[in-house]
């Protein structure tokens, strides 16, 4: 008898745990993006209309056989310019100011995986970083009152979308190898060039003999 009740309790616990995992963020491949993750996006892409977009790359999926109602709360924490767009679950909204927002709620089937189409569209040469927190939640819908009730707060992730200034010193890349060490012909290390033959080592692994006059 004890065994049976223990089994029943374990089943109830397992069922409860499964419910707690119902709504999730995922990447394009369907891999779960866990709670507390920070994503850094610094590669933009142009859409069909020529707008430069920095996409969060987030999808929503549900881990249940039932149809559930899902919505996203999001906070635009910083946005130097442009707008942040999100198209979930059945509408598209364009935000031009920092603040806390919520999407509408929509029904979601067991096998659904939906791109939330959340992206920052900076102005031309509007370099900087847009930071957004997003949390996906599960709701129930009361058809009589036509109200949604929150039943599960799902994972929360942070996305930093950075539009880098190509002219910035931080972004300068050089093809020139950098000197890492210099020696005289006796093999002694020297701190600066000396007259005569200098043996110079570079960070690309090459060693070159240089004549300093």
């Amino acid at each position, binding site marked *: 008898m004890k065994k049976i009740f223990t089994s029943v309790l374990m089943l109830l616990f397992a069922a409860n745990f499964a419910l707690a995992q119902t709504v999730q963020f995922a990447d394009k491949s369907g891999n779960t993006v866990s709670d507390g993750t920070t994503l850094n996006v610094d590669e933009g892409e142009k859409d069909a*209309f020529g707008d430069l977009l920095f996409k969060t790359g987030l999808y929503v999926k549900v881990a249940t056989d039932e149809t559930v109602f899902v919505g996203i709360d999001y906070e635009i924490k910083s946005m130097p310019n442009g707008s942040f767009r999100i198209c979930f679950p059945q509408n598209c909204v364009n935000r031009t100011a920092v603040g806390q927002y919520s999407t509408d709620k929509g029904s979601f089937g067991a096998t659904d995986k939906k791109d939330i189409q959340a992206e920052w569209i900076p102005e031309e040469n509007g370099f900087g970083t847009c930071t957004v927190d997003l949390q996906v939640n599960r709701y129930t819908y009361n058809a009589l009152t036509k109200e949604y009730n929150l039943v599960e707060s799902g994972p929360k992730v942070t996305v930093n979308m950075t539009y880098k200034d190509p002219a910035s010193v931080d972004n300068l890349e050089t093809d020139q190898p950098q000197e890492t060490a210099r020696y005289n012909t006796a093999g002694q290390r020297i701190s600066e060039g000396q007259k005569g033959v200098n043996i110079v080592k570079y960070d690309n692994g090459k060693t070159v003999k240089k004549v300093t006059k």
Partner: protein
Amino acid sequence: MKKLSFYLLAFLFIGCSHIDESERLIYVPPIDVQRAVLIEDFTGQACVNCPAASDVILDLQNTFGEINIVPVAIHSGPFAHKRSNMSGPFLSDLGTADGDEFFTHWGIEAQPGVKINRGAPIYDPNQYAAAVQAEMQKTSPVYFEVFKAICDDGKTINVVIHPSIPTTDIDARLQVWIVEDGINAEGGNSTYVQMMGDGSANENYVHNHVFRASMTDNLYGDPYRQGAGEKFLVEFNYSKAVESPWKVENLSVVAFLWNEKDGVLCVSRTKVKR
């Protein structure tokens, strides 16, 4: 005891079978259609969720007939594009300044968003049908006795409207719009690409009932006042030059009477004849 355990476990595992929303049979009671309904659909080519809403509107037309459902796709707001502000490979001019004015005036917050007979904006396509049915069952105090749109020279559209004798006093505004069907890729460097729900760009998307221009002097309509039972002797006449790249054979005219109190009183659509 074994029986008790069996029933306990059975209780835990047996539940009601779940039927997905999309698979449920929803009984739509037959309704007595009293009047046509205007659906102002605030949409945009960059709005990935808008094609799904257009499909819902198409379903309503198939259910209740094109004569009873008069949709107008107003490309507007942040998800619409105008040729003048685009730099990408796909150029289009579905967005209009008038459309943006309507979008702002009506306080549209998300796209797709629709106004059904000028009611409050609706953002959930699942709610369109109920709002349409409610509006259809109301009676209209007036209708258009004469409504003709002709473009016999291929250059100018001429519209004649004559309202019926109203059953109640009317204090409204008459709006007259040109809409175009069948807009799609036209070759060269100009296409009418539509972003789709899966994030893809559909270059072959066909845009229907697209708002092109307003024909009235006032953007929100010309005043129309008439007493109950009073015959209106004057016809309303409007003219508008055909603009590039409109195709006359695909143009129609939508006319409606509306006011702030009652919303749209009557709406009708007629094809432009050559």
